[in-house]
């Protein structure tokens, strides 16, 4: 594993886990470090447990590892939940007030957790009653405990700022743990203060309160635990870097790509994207004094979201909707209408653990097949799967090009692990975004001609005209239609029109470049090949690096466009491989199924995970090692992450 440092903050939802983690991450970024952060939260507003896992490293990191070097706990539950994750040599920051807390008194721990917990205690032969007992236990593991008197400190602060309401003060527990963390690491406070200023934005009173808390805890830690020896050194860098989460990258890509209408119905984790776009709905136009705008419409449901987006697309605007599984299920019918009417509409589809409401705030990659087959009947569509946050940006923009070139819906598959993870990146390059609008006509092309929206042409594509263009009219219908767009039931017309539409998938298959469809990593001649898609990318790359250090070579095909599948490419790579390994965040190995359907090639091994948590580099590494060492079953099921 890298020479990195893993920090985690845990506490009840609403207690500021996110903001403390954001401050922590930014402070590290400001200090020239690289950060990867993963957010885990419950489907709840206040009270249930949430945590933020942050990995800090001198070099870029693209995944988590299941280990914590410094655990900041806001409450007793966080200690109980994460205590076994703390690495030997690591530490735990906790409230002195919870040492005596009885574990059985923590009511928010669910039955299912308690069952597992008791099992694990039994296995370890432990019988802790209080949180203190537990902490004592891990001390044996060489874990250091850093108790901080949260309440006393808050009261002190309260006095200093003249705030007596404890409920207002306890909101700063998160900053106390932050202060302590940086104090333990003796980290440059200036960066932390900058981050606090950034996160609390334009609220000076809150900023000063929090700075006070920060300093108190920082000093306390320096004074009481000066020997903690936590290693978090700033690095000088001239590189321009940004730090962002997946939903932001998608939003940026869509804006740059020219999206001008965005519809959505609130749903986790997709809504963040729409809200971020709405906050930035007015923007500058390059090379002009004018501003532009994107319309963001909150609809009454997802049926309205997709149909409204399609309506807008018909007028020539680049238009999209953004959703998650339950919403996409409701979009199936609308999608088919876009298919038969050859409407370029983009759906940014954030997968989460299914089926049904499932794990609404947790990760999953189980919707690939559904994305390909959603809606009755057959029509072409293009599925783009991003593997990391940077790809989210470029793919989100490119999706519109595919949609307009092939006049068909494009589904951009993202997953919760990408949506709600944050990562530091070298500044994105918007000039790499290109806009290709396909065969799009204007008034001049049609005036005086008998425009046929669904003309049979040589290219296989019927040139498109925005609704409202003067000088022509045309019709759309969900029924099979003739070239004008009027309903037809005639046998021959049906055969041809359906074939014309379906052939666009073949055209896309021919035209879209390989480099947009797959990423290849590792040595061409390595004896083993990993195939995956989506967020596992980061964990796989790191696991491969670890294996390489062990002297083991692999290669990795990351499929970015599973439909149409780059069949020949995959046949070629997998044909040379003696061990073919699918890595996917679902039960059935959906991409592997598609590959077999298209190429006949059966994967030899499956590394699968569906517990709602993203894959970590270490568990993928272990699973791969098992395969190398011939001690793996065909299916290995990962279960890491708390």
């Amino acid at each position, binding site marked *: 594993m890298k020479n990195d440092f893993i920090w985690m903050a845990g506490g009840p939802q609403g207690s500021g886990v996110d903001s403390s983690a954001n401050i922590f991450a930014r402070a590290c970024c400001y200090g020239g470090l690289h950060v990867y952060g993963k957010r885990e939260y419950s489907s709840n507003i206040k009270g249930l447990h949430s945590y933020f896992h942050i990995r800090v490293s001198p070099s870029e990191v693209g995944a988590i590892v299941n280990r914590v070097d410094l655990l900041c706990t806001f409450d007793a539950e966080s200690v109980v939940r994460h205590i076994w994750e703390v690495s030997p040599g690591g530490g735990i920051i906790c409230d002195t007030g919870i040492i005596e807390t009885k574990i059985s008194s923590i009511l928010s721990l669910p039955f299912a957790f308690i069952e597992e917990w008791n099992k694990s205690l039994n296995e370890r032969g432990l019988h802790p009653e209080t949180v203190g007992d537990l902490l004592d236990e891990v001390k044996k593991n060489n874990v250091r405990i850093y108790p901080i008197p949260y309440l006393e400190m808050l009261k002190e602060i309260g006095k200093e700022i003249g705030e007596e309401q404890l409920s207002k003060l306890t909101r700063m527990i998160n900053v106390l743990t932050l202060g302590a963390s940086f104090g333990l690491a003796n980290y440059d406070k200036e960066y932390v203060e900058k981050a606090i200023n950034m996160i609390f934005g334009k609220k000076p009173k809150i900023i000063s309160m929090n700075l006070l808390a920060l300093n108190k805890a920082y000093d306390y830690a320096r004074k009481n635990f000066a020997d903690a020896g936590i290693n978090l050194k700033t690095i000088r860098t001239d590189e321009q870097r940004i730090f962002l989460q997946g939903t932001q990258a998608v939003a940026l890509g869509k804006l*740059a790509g020219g999206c001008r209408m965005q519809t959505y119905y609130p749903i986790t984790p997709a809504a963040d994207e729409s809200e971020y776009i709405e906050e930035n*709905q007015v923007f500058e136009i390059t090379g002009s004094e004018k501003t532009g705008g994107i319309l963001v419409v909150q609809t009454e449901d997802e049926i309205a979201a997709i149909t409204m987006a399609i*309506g807008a697309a018909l007028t020539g605007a680049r238009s999209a909707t953004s959703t998650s599984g339950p919403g996409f299920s409701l979009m199936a019918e609308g999608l088919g209408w876009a298919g038969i009417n050859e409407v370029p509409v983009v759906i940014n589809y954030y997968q989460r653990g299914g089926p049904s409401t499932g794990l609404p705030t947790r990760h999953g990659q189980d919707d690939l097949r559904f994305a390909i087959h959603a809606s009755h009947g057959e029509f072409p569509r293009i599925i783009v799967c991003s593997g990391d946050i940077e790809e989210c940006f470029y793919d989100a923009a490119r999706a519109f090009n595919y949609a307009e070139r092939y006049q068909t819906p494009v589904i951009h598959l993202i997953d919760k692990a990408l949506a709600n993870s944050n990562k530091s990146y070298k500044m994105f390059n918007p000039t790499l975004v290109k806009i290709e609008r396909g065969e799009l006509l204007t008034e001049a092309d049609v005036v005086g001609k008998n425009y046929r929206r669904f003309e049979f042409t040589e290219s296989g594509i019927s040139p498109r005209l925005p609704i409202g263009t003067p000088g022509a009219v045309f019709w759309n219908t969900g029924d099979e239609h003739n070239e004008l767009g009027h309903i037809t039931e005639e046998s021959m017309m049906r055969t041809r029109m359906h074939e014309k539409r379906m052939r666009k998938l073949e055209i896309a298959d021919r035209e879209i470049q390989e480099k947009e469809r797959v990423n290849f990593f590792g040595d061409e001649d390595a004896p083993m090949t990993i195939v995956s898609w989506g967020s596992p990318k980061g964990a796989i790359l790191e696991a491969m690096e670890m294996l390489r250090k062990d002297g083991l070579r692999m290669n990795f095909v990351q499929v970015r466009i599973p439909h149409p599948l780059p069949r020949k490419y995959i046949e070629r790579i997998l044909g040379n491989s003696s061990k073919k390994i699918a890595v996917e965040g679902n039960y059935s190995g959906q991409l592997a199924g598609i590959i077999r359907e298209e190429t006949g090639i059966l994967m030899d091994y499956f590394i699968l995970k569906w517990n709602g948590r993203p894959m970590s580099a270490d568990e993928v590494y272990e699973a791969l090692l098992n395969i190398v060492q011939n001690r793996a079953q065909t299916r290995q099921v990962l279960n890491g992450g708390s």
Partner: protein
Amino acid sequence: MALKLSDYRTQVFNDWCPGCGNFGILTSLQMALVDLAVKPSRVVIISGIGCHGKTPHFVNAYGVHTLHGRALPFAIGIKLANPELEVIVHGGDGDGLGIGAGHFVNTGRRNLDMTYIIHDNGVYGLTKGQASPTLKLGVKTKAMPKPNINEGINPIALALAAGFTFIARSYCYDVGHLKETIKMAVKHKGMALVIVQQWCPTYNEINTKGWYNGEDRIDPVTGKPIPRLYKLEENGYDGVVRKPEDVLPKTVAALTKAFEWDDKIPIGVFYQNELVSTFQERISQRITTYPGTPPAKEIIADNMGEPVTSIKKMLDELKVTG
């Protein structure tokens, strides 16, 4: 050059049943377009699925025949992306008030500047005569094996509750009245609803021409039928809100009228309120460029295909080094 009726007609064979009320609606629509003198390429006729749904194919204008129950959100997308277009939506009573009731309710709230015409024939025409949501409890039409087990809903009352700002009823065979009503609806600044009582001679043998004419009830004095339909405005009714204080009384008056049925059925404008801001106006307050360059009109790339949207400000906010 002035536009003629034929400019709004297509060559498509009209396959509605002989005597279908839709013919009257289609003609009234085309006549209204002539009077409004709006070019075919600036008009979008949108429909759901049902017999009514074929309307756009018979009108020479941009035509969007959508999905069952979804005409409104499609229309909203089109109108929002290009507010210069004259958007006229046709819905069936099943389409608009059964499967599409959710959009109906939530469209009222938005007050877009559009027109929605519901072809109310009391049945699901195209699927062969099942009861539609406007059919009253206990009524049995031809194709139904048993009398209607559901109460009919009141679309006028529903529209008032949902926030439509123009609510009228007309009749498929009073082409003059219907034409004028459509024109008022189109001109209305805000979301307009026109419920058209439509015959379906094939499946609805209850609410027929004769029934609307009152042929089943002969005035003992004159010996003539007593028509069921009467015109609101001819009875001194005025549904127009002119000042904020009018809203509540006019709403209540409209509701009272909305519950008239059977014996006397009012047609005309139940309610109109142009004091409410339109959705487009509300957007313009947020995006000042919206009226001139709505989504459909924005230029997104230069001639070389380079994007012109600057995301620099956003990237700067995300910047952590450099």
